[in-house]
């Protein structure tokens, strides 16, 4: 499963930032349900990444963080490091000198990371002892972001840990402050070279500089001479991919996290080792769901949908679009898809919809036949996200019942101000579709943070539950946020992709991942 960080980085980075009065609120919540988590579940070395917004002396700027923290299983952070990039302001590496953390029985918790400049408080939710989501809640409300963390393989790390062909999705802002999606495939030789690769660079609506087809890329990765011990200890090395300069943190042989540092933009995201890559359309078939976020001509955009693939033809396409608050839910006509016969994992999807002047055009790169990065190349739109296979299991309230980690991110209008919103927490789906849970909400828009907020709502399955389903969420913030509406798309293994459908108010995308303590 692709990290959520890159799914929302565009949504975050394009945020229509604005600052307002300070404030905040906290609701009194009942004790968390016992989903089986304890403090000892967070133990070991974890790589994390996130993207969002920072209130700087210049104004509100895109922010990215990537790094590693070490948890001792007893509530203490014993070390780690991170890189921070704030667009147009700074990029730097800092070591963690300590910290603390908590984990409640529902998997929710807090993380405090200390470095030489101070402390940062974050909210976390575990989906398993190996992974979870993360949102900063600094005490001065100076930032918000959304991201993920995942347990690292055992070190020490070396160049050999980056070896093989990876599909990647990096997104954020380009050096001119326009939205950019950088999705592709790259081969590492285990010795410091990215020998070859392909990219679809949707930079502010222009694909690969206007030249048709993917662009060729190559590059290098090496230990940072300024922080030599960071590589063996934390898996951190410096990277140059065809002029995009940044750092990567090795998660393990199957994944690394990337963040742009010194080439002007704020690209960030994940790369996953490819496996079982199809080389023909006959080898990729079935139902898929997706959610993307980014920029359109209006402003922020999110798009979700379902599509079926078989032998080069698309069918049963449903596409939902929240384009700066304009909501459209369309049924796609029959279309086509292609697969690169050379095995890069690159493919294309094209279909039209009734009444629409311009077709929907997507490019994708496969991690596997069921896990896919997808980029929107429809005219003058910049967005990307994840596309996941649905499998053949029956989808029902009973099959979906269980505990989930939930995270959404996007842009919202609150108190007549537009800006970023990030939500993180735990939600339980009951056997009749009832939702209960507890979340933390960072309304960066108005510099308000709500913690331990009760969540209620309903998940109402469509007559065809493989298509979009309707979710209503009530948040007991003060004032309450009741009746938030979303579409929910169910993928393999009960991963649920979310797209906010509140007209004119929220442009958000998110995910619910089943918890496995």
């Amino acid at each position, binding site marked *: 499963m692709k990290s959520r960080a890159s799914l929302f980085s565009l949504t975050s*980075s*394009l945020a*229509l*930032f*604005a600052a307002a009065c300070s404030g905040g609120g906290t609701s009194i919540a009942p004790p968390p349900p016992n989903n089986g988590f304890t403090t000892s579940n967070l133990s070991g070395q974890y790589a994390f990444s996130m993207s969002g917004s*920072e209130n700087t*002396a210049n*104004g*509100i700027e*895109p922010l990215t963080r990537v790094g590693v923290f070490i948890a001792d299983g007893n509530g203490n952070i014993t070390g780690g490091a991170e890189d921070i990039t*704030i*667009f147009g*302001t*700074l990029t730097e590496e*800092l070591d963690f000198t300590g910290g603390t953390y908590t984990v409640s029985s529902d998997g929710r918790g807090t993380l405090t990371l*200390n*470095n030489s*400049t*101070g*402390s*940062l408080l974050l909210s976390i939710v575990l989906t398993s002892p190996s992974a979870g989501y993360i949102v900063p809640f*600094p005490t*001065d409300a*100076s930032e918000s972001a959304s991201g993920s963390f995942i347990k690292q393989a055992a070190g020490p790390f070396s160049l050999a840990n980056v070896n093989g062909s990876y599909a990647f999705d990096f997104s954020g802002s380009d*050096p*001119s*402050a*326009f*939205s950019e999606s950088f999705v592709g495939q790259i081969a590492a030789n285990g010795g410091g070279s990215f020998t070859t690769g392909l990219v679809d*660079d949707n*930079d*502010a*609506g*222009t694909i690969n500089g206007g030249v*048709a087809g993917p*662009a*060729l*890329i190559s590059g290098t990765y090496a230990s940072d001479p300024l922080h030599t011990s960071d590589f063996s200890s934390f898996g951190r090395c410096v990277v140059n991919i*065809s*002029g*995009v300069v940044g750092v990567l943190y090795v998660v393990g042989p199957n994944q690394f996290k990337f963040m742009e540092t010194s080439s*002007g*933009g704020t690209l960030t995201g994940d790369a996953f080792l490819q496996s079982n890559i199809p080389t023909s359309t006959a080898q990729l078939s079935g139902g898929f769901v997706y959610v993307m976020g980014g920029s*359109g*001509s209006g*402003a922020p955009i999110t798009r979700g949908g379902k599509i079926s693939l078989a032998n080069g033809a698309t069918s049963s396409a449903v596409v939902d679009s929240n*384009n*700066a*608050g304009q909501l459209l839910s*369309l049924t796609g006509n029959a279309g086509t898809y292609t697969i690169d016969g050379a095995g890069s994992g690159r493919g294309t999807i094209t279909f039209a919809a009734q009444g*629409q*002047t*311009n077709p929907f055009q997507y490019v994708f790169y496969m991690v596997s036949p069921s896990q896919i990065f997808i980029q929107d190349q429809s005219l*003058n739109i910049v967005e990307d996200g994840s596309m996941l296979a649905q499998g053949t299991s029956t989808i029902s309230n009973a099959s979906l019942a269980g505990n989930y980690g939930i995270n959404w991110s996007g842009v919202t209008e609150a108190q*007549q*101000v*537009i800006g970023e919103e990030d939500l993180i927490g735990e939600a339980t789906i009951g056997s009749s579709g009832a939702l209960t849970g507890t979340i933390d909400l960072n309304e960066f828009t108005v510099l308000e943070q709500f913690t331990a907020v009760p969540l209620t709502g309903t998940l109402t399955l469509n007559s065809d539950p493989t298509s979009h389903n309707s979710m209503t969420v009530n948040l007991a913030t003060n004032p309450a946020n009741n009746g938030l509406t979303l579409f929910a798309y169910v993928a393999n293994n009960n991963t649920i992709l979310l797209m906010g459908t509140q*007209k*004119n*108010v929220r442009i958000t995308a998110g995910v619910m991942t089943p918890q496995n303590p």
Partner: protein
Amino acid sequence: MRPNIKLHLSGMLTAAALFTAPLAGAQQKANAISSVPQANFAYDVTKESVVQGTVISYTAASDVAPIGPHAKIQTSSGVVDVHLGNPEAMKQNDIFLAAGDSVSIVGENENFGGAPVFLARVLHKGNQTVTLRNLKGIPVNAKAPANAKPRNIVGGAQ
């Protein structure tokens, strides 16, 4: 933790402001507006026009689509609803709108959420000029460094 934030004192020009704007012809062209809402409506510089007039009102956060800053502009041919991209880009470029301001705005008419709206690409107020969208209509996210250029991937076509 608070990173070591440094003041960024770049010049007033943004890279985005280098986009040229056709200012000749001060009246707004009435583009054909489709009756069907478009999910993939596409900004087209060949359909650009200029709205020239006086600000009636400005809000940084409209409650109608497209979400974001809107201004009502009184022109010689009526009132035009203008969407100004990202309010932060205006703020970071020290350009603010208030009732009574005279402005000239390059952009394009679109049908958005069932109502016409003028998507602003370049805003001129007095001797101030700020580019709010690129030639594809994508809003700028923040103030770009003065020497910023679009991405140039070192590699090339396959």
